[in-house]
C-alpha cells in the first residue's frame, strides 16, 4: 500500500517535471496570451469588489471595459490585475494559505513575459532579415543595464551565414536602448541583465 502511494507520488512529480522541462525546451508558453486588437473590444471582468481579507461581502460585479488600441501595456496591466484578483477568489474558495506565494510566482511569470514581448517588439521593428534561402538561426547574448541600454552583444551561436548573423547584430545596434523596461531590481538581475536573443524567422 505504501509502495503504491510512493510510486504514484514520484510518478506525478516526474510527469510535472517532464511537462515543465519539455515546455522549456520547446519554448511553449504555459501562460501565454496575445492582446493585439485593432479596434475597441469590450472585455468582461468578473471580480470581487471588496477587499481580499474581509469575508463579509461577496458581491460579484460584471464590469464592461473597452480596450483602446495602442494601449498594449494597459491591457497587460489590466490582465495582471485581473489575474491577481482571480487568484484571490480562488484562494478564498480553496482556503489555502500559500496565496501570497502563488501570487508572486504568477506575477513574476507574467512580468517576464510582458518585458520579453516589449523587447521582442522593439527588435522586430528594426530587423531587416536577409534573403538567405536556408533556415538559419542565430543566438546572441545581450547585456543590459537597468535603464534598458545595451552594454554588450555577443554571438553565442552563429547561423553559419555572415549576412544573417550581421543582420541580427545590426538590429541590436539600431535599438541601442530598450524603452519601457522599468521593473523591480531583482526581476531585472535574474532575467534581463543577461539574456539570449534568438533570431529564427520560420
Amino acid at each position: 500500500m505504501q509502495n503504491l502511494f510512493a510510486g504514484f507520488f514520484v510518478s506525478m512529480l516526474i510527469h510535472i517535471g517532464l511537462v515543465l522541462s519539455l515546455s522549456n525546451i520547446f519554448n511553449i508558453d504555459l501562460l501565454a496570451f496575445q492582446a493585439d486588437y485593432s479596434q475597441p473590444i469590450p472585455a468582461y471582468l468578473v471580480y470581487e469588489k471588496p477587499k481580499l481579507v474581509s469575508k463579509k461581502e461577496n458581491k460579484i460585479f460584471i464590469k464592461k471595459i473597452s480596450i483602446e488600441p495602442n494601449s498594449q501595456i494597459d491591457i497587460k496591466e489590466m490582465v495582471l490585475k485581473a489575474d491577481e484578483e482571480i487568484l484571490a477568489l480562488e484562494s478564498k474558495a480553496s482556503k489555502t494559505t500559500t496565496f501570497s506565494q502563488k501570487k508572486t510566482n504568477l506575477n513574476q511569470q507574467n512580468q517576464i513575459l510582458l518585458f520579453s514581448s516589449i523587447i521582442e517588439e522593439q527588435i522586430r521593428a528594426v530587423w531587416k532579415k536577409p534573403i538567405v534561402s536556408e533556415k538559419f538561426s542565430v543566438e546572441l547574448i545581450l547585456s543590459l543595464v537597468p535603464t534598458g541600454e545595451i552594454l554588450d552583444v555577443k554571438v553565442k551561436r552563429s547561423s553559419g551565414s555572415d549576412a544573417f548573423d550581421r543582420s541580427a547584430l545590426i538590429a541590436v545596434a539600431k535599438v541601442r536602448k530598450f524603452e519601457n523596461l522599468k521593473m523591480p531590481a531583482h526581476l531585472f538581475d535574474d532575467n534581463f541583465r543577461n539574456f539570449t536573443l534568438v533570431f529564427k524567422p520560420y
Partner: protein
Amino acid sequence: MMQSFYKIIYLLLILSSTYLSSQLRIEITGGSDEPIRVAMVPFEWKLNSAPSHYLHEIVKKDLESFAEFAVLNPEDMLSYPSLEEEISYRDWRLLKVDYLIIGSVLKSEIEGEVNIAYSILDVSRRKNIHKALIKGSVKSLKRMGHNISDRIYHKINGIPGIFSTRIAYVDKPLSDADSYDLRITDIDGDGDLSLFKSNQPILSPDWSPNGKEIAYVSFEEGTSRIYIQELATGNRRALKRERGINSSPSWSPNGNYLSAVLSKGDNPDIYLYNLRSNAWTPLTGHYGIDTEPDWSPDGKSLIFTSNRSGSPQIYEINISSMRIKRKTFEGTYNARARYLPDGKNIIYVHRRKGVFHIALHNLRTGKISILTDTFLDESPSVAPNGNVIIYATKDRETDTDILAGVTINGKTRFILPSVSGGAREPAWSPILDKY
C-alpha cells in the same frame, strides 16, 4: 529500496534540466518588411576623361530591381565622403541608411584600364564589412558597376547577386515567319546580340555550367539536332544525330554529359550523351513520352516529364539506382520542370482550370504554390541564386510573345520588353564572374 532511489535520481535529472537552460531566451520570429536602405555616394572620379557611366546609377538601378532595396538619391545626401575617415556616421544614421558605399575610380598603370577602390560600411555598427579593388578596362565600366552591385547584394543578403548574368532566348520576329534567332542579353536589356540565325526553328537553349557554351536544338538540316556553340568564338559542333527527335538538351553539373531526348526507340526517351566519347546511353525506356530532362544540382538525379500515367506529370530518376519516382499528383498537366539551386524545390508548367501557370513545388513536402497569373506560361528558368524566375508568356493585349519574371516569394513581378514581339525559351546563365 533501489527502485525508489533510481526514481528519485530520474526525477532530479528531469527537474534539473529546467535549470540548465534557465537563462531567459527571447525569440524573434519575424522582422520589418521595409526594404534595406543603401546609400552609394557618387565615387570620386580621378581620371582625365569624363565618365561613360555613373556607377552609382548602375548600382541603384540594379539593387532596386526586385523591390528588396531602397537606394538614396545623391541629392538627399548630407555629405559626400570618398574615404572612410571622411564618414560622419551620424549623418547617415539620421537618413536611416543601413549600408553606405564609398569609393574612388583611379587611374591604372595599364593603358586603357581603371582601378575602382570601394568599401561597404555598416552604418549601425560603424564597421567596414567589405573592401575591394576592381581592375578592368574603361570600356567595361558598366560591367564593373554590375560587379559592385553583385558584391553589395551578396554581402547583405547572403546569396549571390545576379546583375552580371545573362539571358539566352529564341526570338522569332513577328514580321518574318521564317526567321529564328538565338540571342543573349544582359539582365538590364543591354548587350542584346544574336548568336545564331536560321530560317528553321531553334529551341531549348541550355547554358553549360561554366557559362562558356550553349547547347540548343536546331532544325537547319530539316529535322531536330542538338548543337553546342562556344560563345567566345562562335564555333559550333553537333551531337551525333539519331533517327527521330534529338532535342531537349540539359547540361550535367560537371559539364561532362548532356541529358537529352531521342525517339529512335519508337517513342521519346531520356538519354545521356557523353561529351568525350560522343556516345548515347538510354536512361528511360517506357513506351510513353519521356522528355524535358533537367539535372539536379548535385548531379545525382534528373527530373523529367512523362505521360506514362496517361497525362504529362513530373518524375525523378536517380541515376545510379535508376529508380523512378512520380513527383506531381495535382492537376492533369505538369511539364518542363527545373530544379532550384538548392535542389529541394522545383518549378514547372502546371495547368489549372485550363490555364497554364508556373508552379513552385517543394520536393519533400509536395506543397505547391502558383507563382504566376499570366496567360499561356511556359519555359520557366531559374536565376542562379534561386531568387528569381524568368519565363515565356503572351501579352494578351498585343498578342505578342514576351518574357516575364517573378521573384520566388511571388512579391515582385516584371516584364522584359521584347523589341520584335516574338521572344521565347529564356535560359538564365550561371554566375559568370566567379570570385
